[in-house]
């Protein structure tokens, strides 16, 4: 039996059950949300279309080019931009509109466009290369059929994400097997995650790879930096970086983790430790290095298009490092003495309310009372998790290095989002930040739930876990109900 086969056999049955839950939920979301109503789905579809039809990556076309006659006509027939951003406008709801869609689908319009993929153009290609498989395998040439098949692959990525979340909890809290499914299921029913898993967006592969990185790190802390564990860390980070550059935010945490782990095992086995470090570094940097080279030599794109580096400020705006630092701080934390950068309080408005649920192209959400209830529940769960950490403080002291790594992963991701947010503000006065950008931290979200459950002990913990899972189910179903009401009622 292969190594992968042995590894898969070691995955507990209940972990597969949790992954199946996420798959079913993601597929349900993929059927509920109308086509192109997941953020930037038109752009991500265009990228896949470019990869599948022309075998090249998209490039910026000025002025903004057409996506392709096939896609543009369907977007128009779906009245997409009359629905996106207008919460009172439902999806097409008459047979007459369906006839227009059918007529366009029968025209066999070309899927070759200008080569522009709008906001997705600058992204690395891995997710799109994978999505080119269902795109090509879909027998009909119809845009909507291909999109649905691609959504299926995204749902599968969501399921694998939950599997890795489960495996992360297994490494993090090895003595509390009854807490693992709670954390994994709370993620599987997280409505924002379900909504994204049901759409075509490279965030889906980012979530999978982020969960993989955190699982590999937890595994390294529990089992040591063996060459295999080093390779696992490096592979997830490396592949993650060519899925979406947001994962750059995890690099400081991974570097710290590898340093801490290497220091631990250096004295015992220098050779194995060095190999572990080499695998981690090589596999982390290899894919992104190849991507940069191909960008330069083959695809004729800038080194990291739209990723890092200089951007031109809009007229009347200048980049200021002090303002950027203040912007990043205020994006996540209370303002203190600084000059206001936001008209609202992003921690509450953008992150908390967004994670509880703000769907579509950020154009519909829950009734206001839901966020108040969620805050009370969230605070209670966090309090239980903190109480559990306090109760286990002796063990925690021995794992401070590991805790610091997870904290640095949060900080790194927030800084990365903050930098992008500031760039967007200065270059085009745009609002970049959306709650879904925090979903690479799903493992830590699950860990909070699992720690809270652990506080209940072996006697009450499982019941507390069941309560959290029921709340998550209710939350998810409610989110689907407002989605049905938004688009179909």
């Amino acid at each position, binding site marked *: 039996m292969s190594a992968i086969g042995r590894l898969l056999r070691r995955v507990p049955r209940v972990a597969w059950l949790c992954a199946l839950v996420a798959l079913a939920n993601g597929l349900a979301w993929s059927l509920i949300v109308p086509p192109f109503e997941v953020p930037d789905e038109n752009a991500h579809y265009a990228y896949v279309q470019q990869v599948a039809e022309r075998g090249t990556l998209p490039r910026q076309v000025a002025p903004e080019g057409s996506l392709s006659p096939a896609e543009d006509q369907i977007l128009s027939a779906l009245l997409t931009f009359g629905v996106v951003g207008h919460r009172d406008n439902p999806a*097409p709801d008459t047979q007459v*509109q*369906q006839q227009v869609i059918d007529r366009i689908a029968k025209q066999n319009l070309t899927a070759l466009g200008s080569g522009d993929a709008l906001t997705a153009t600058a992204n690395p290609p891995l997710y799109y290369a994978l999505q080119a498989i269902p795109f090509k395998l879909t027998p009909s040439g*119809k845009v*909507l059929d291909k999109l649905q098949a691609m959504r299926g692959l995204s749902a599968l990525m969501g399921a694998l994400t939950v599997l890795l979340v489960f495996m992360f909890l297994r490494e993090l809290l090895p003595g509390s097997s009854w807490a693992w499914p709670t954390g994994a299921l709370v993620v599987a029913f997280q409505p924002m995650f379900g909504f994204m898993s049901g759409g075509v967006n490279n965030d889906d592969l980012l979530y999978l790879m982020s969960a993989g990185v955190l699982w590999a790190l937890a595994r390294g802390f529990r089992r040591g930096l063996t060459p295999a564990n080093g390779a696992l860390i490096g592979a997830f980070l490396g592949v993650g970086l060519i899925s979406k550059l947001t994962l750059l935010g995890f690099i400081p945490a991974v570097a710290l983790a590898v340093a801490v782990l290497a220091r631990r095992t250096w004295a015992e086995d220098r050779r194995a430790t060095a190999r572990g470090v080499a695998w981690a570094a090589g596999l982390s940097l290899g894919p992104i290095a190849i991507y940069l080279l191909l960008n330069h030599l083959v695809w004729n794109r800038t080194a990291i298009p739209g990723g890092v580096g200089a951007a031109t400020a809009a007229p009347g705006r200048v980049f200021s490092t002090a303002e950027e630092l203040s912007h990043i701080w205020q994006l996540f934390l209370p303002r203190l003495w600084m000059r206001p950068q936001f008209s609202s309080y992003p921690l509450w408005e953008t992150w908390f309310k967004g994670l509880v649920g703000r769907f579509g192209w950020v154009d519909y959400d829950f009734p206001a009372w839901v966020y108040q209830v969620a805050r009370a529940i969230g605070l209670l769960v966090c309090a239980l998790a903190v109480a559990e950490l306090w109760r286990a403080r002796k063990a925690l002291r021995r794992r401070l290095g590991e805790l610091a790594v997870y904290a640095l992963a949060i900080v790194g991701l927030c800084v990365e989002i903050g930098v992008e947010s500031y760039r967007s503000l200065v270059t085009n006065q745009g609002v970049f930040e959306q709650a879904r950008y925090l979903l690479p931290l799903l493992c830590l979200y699950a860990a909070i739930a699992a720690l809270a459950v652990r506080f209940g002990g072996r006697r009450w913990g499982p019941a507390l876990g069941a309560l959290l899972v029921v709340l998550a189910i209710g939350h998810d179903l409610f989110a689907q109900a407002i989605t049905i009401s938004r688009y179909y009622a």
Partner: protein
Amino acid sequence: MRLTPVRVVLAVGLLAIAVAAVVVLLQQEPRRAGTNLTADRGYVLALPPGQQLCEPGELLPGDTGALRLDASAGGLPGPRLSATLSAPGGPVSAGQIGGGWHAGLIVIPVRRVAQTRSAATVCVRNLGSHQVLFGGSAPDSSFFISIAGRPVSGRLRIEYLRPGRESWLALVPNLAHRFSLAKSDLVRHWAAAAALLLMLLAVGLATRAMLNEERSP
């Protein structure tokens, strides 16, 4: 079967969700038949007293029993308004709202329109003695309406309501039909049932996972 805390929590919790779902499904409200997908950017269209506003190119959904408009009479009680709906074959429906309404969303009941009609024209006449402002989009480069016989670049936002008040439960067949539109041919005829079954499966598997782990050390 032994009654454990996990089983009790799961049973009570899932029952509570089911009860909440039934309560929501039974709530009776006016329900939408469709909209004209026009953004309401404020009171941008003025209709003088005694004049008529006509909006061509409307897709009039079947089962329309009323028009919902955003209107204001500038702080005064709203005047009487009449609405006429016509399609290429001739008049389709008409109705009116009495005076005294307040600014905001107003509903003009009309005779039920059975079938969806394309290229319909909706006209609203101000039967009062002072101006009424309507919510919509103006100027709007893609559309022209006529106000007092003169063309105006813009569009009135119209929501078409079904007759009376209905529960979600009564609307389920319509929702299932709408669910089948504008989707991939691979899924559209069974998407609603599949979404329901997938969620039942998800809840069932989650319950099983929690019960399994209850027994673990």
